[in-house]
C-alpha cells in the first residue's frame, strides 16, 4: 500500500517514471508462481503390508514371471540346476574345504530361520504395534482434548443467548428495591406530618381544658364570695321549712 503511494508520488514528480509506477508491484507478483503441480504423496500413502515376493529366500518372483511365458513353471529351476552343474564341471566354482563349512553354515541358517522365523517376526511386529499404539493414543488424546474444548466453547456460546434472563431478574430486583424505598419514605413522611398535627391538636385540647377549669373555678369562687352570711342563714331556714312541708305531704298520702 505505502509502496504504491510512494511510487505514484514519484510518478507525479518525474513524468518519465510514470510507466514504471504502474508496473512496479504487480509485475513482481505475477512472475513468481509457486505450487502449480498436483500435490503427490499427500496424504502420505500407507506402508505396503508385505514386501516383494521372493522364492528360495533369495530370488525375486519377477525373475520367475519373466521366464514363465517361454519355459513354463520349471524353467527357472532347470536354469538354476544347469548353471550349478556347469559351474561345477567347468570348475568355475572350485570345491575347497570352505565349501563344506559353507554348506554346514547355510544348512544351519536355513534350519534356524525356518523354525524361529515366524515367532521372531511376530515379536518384532508386537514392538512396532506398541509404538504405533502409543502414538495413536497421543493423537486420540489430543483430538479428544480439542473436541472437549469445542463443546465447552459451544456451551458457552449457547449461554450467551440466555443472558437476557439474568438481566431481567436484575431489573426486577432493582425495580422492587426502588418501590420499597419509595413506600418506606412515603410512610415516614406521613408519620412525621401526623406527629406535627397531633402536637398542635393536643396543645389546643390542653388550652381548652385549662381555660374551662379556670373559668369554673373563677365562677365558683365568686359565687361563694357573693353569698353573704345572712343570706346563707335565710336560705337554710327556708330549706328546712320546705322540707318540713314536704314531709307532712308525704306522710299524709299513704294514709289515704
Amino acid at each position, binding site marked *: 500500500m505505502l509502496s504504491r503511494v510512494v511510487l505514484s508520488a514519484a510518478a507525479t514528480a518525474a513524468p518519465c517514471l510514470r510507466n514504471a509506477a504502474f508496473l512496479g508491484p504487480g509485475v513482481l507478483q505475477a512472475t513468481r508462481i509457486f505450487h502449480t503441480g498436483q500435490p503427490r504423496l499427500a496424504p502420505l500413502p500407507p*506402508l*505396503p*503390508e*508385505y*514386501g*516383494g515376493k*521372493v522364492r528360495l*529366500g*533369495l530370488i*525375486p518372483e519377477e525373475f520367475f514371471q519373466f521366464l514363465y511365458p517361454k519355459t513354463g513353471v520349471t524353467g527357472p529351476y532347470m536354469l538354476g540346476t544347469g548353471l550349478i552343474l556347469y559351474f561345477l*564341471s*567347468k*570348475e*568355475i*566354482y*572350485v*570345491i*575347497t574345504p570352505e565349501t563344506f563349512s559353507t554348506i554346514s553354515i547355510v544348512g544351519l541358517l536355513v534350519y534356524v*530361520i525356518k523354525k524361529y*522365523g515366524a515367532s521372531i*517376526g511376530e515379536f518384532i*511386529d508386537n514392538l*512396532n504395534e506398541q509404538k504405533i499404539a502409543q502414538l495413536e493414543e497421543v493423537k486420540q488424546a489430543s483430538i479428544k482434548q480439542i473436541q472437549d474444548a469445542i463443546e465447552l466453547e459451544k456451551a458457552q456460546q449457547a449461554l450467551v443467548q440466555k443472558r437476557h434472563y439474568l438481566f431481567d431478574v436484575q431489573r426486577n430486583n432493582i425495580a422492587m428495591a426502588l418501590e420499597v424505598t419509595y413506600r418506606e419514605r412515603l410512610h415516614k413522611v406521613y408519620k412525621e406530618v401526623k406527629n406535627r398535627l397531633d402536637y398542635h391538636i393536643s396543645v389546643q385540647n390542653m388550652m381548652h381544658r385549662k381555660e374551662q377549669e379556670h373559668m369554673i373555678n373563677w365562677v365558683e369562687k365568686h359565687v361563694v364570695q357573693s353569698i353573704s352570711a345572712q343570706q346563707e342563714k335565710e336560705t337554710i331556714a327556708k330549706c328546712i321549712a320546705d322540707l318540713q312541708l314536704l314531709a307532712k305531704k308525704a306522710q299524709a298520702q299513704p294514709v289515704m
Partner: protein
Amino acid sequence: MTSVMPVKEKKLMDVKLGELPSWILMRNFTPKGIVGAFQRGYYRFYNKYINVKKGSIAGINMVPAAYVLFSYCLSYKELKHQRRHKFH
C-alpha cells in the same frame, strides 16, 4: 529402425536389442547422474523389500548373497590354483 518414442525416454525393458548401445550412451554420466542412479537403485530395493510392515527374511538375505557372489568373483584368481582337475 523406426521407433514411435525417442530412445532416451524408454525404460530398459522396452528398449530393443539393437538400440541398446545408443540407449546406454544416452544415459546421464555426469557425477550428479551417477549419484542419482545409485540413489534410485538403493531406494527401489529399500522401498520394495525393507520399508514394509511385515518384511521377510529375503530383504536381509539378498545383501549377504550378493556380497558372497561379489567376493567370490574377486577372489577367483587365487581360487583357480585349488582346482582338482587340470583339463575341463
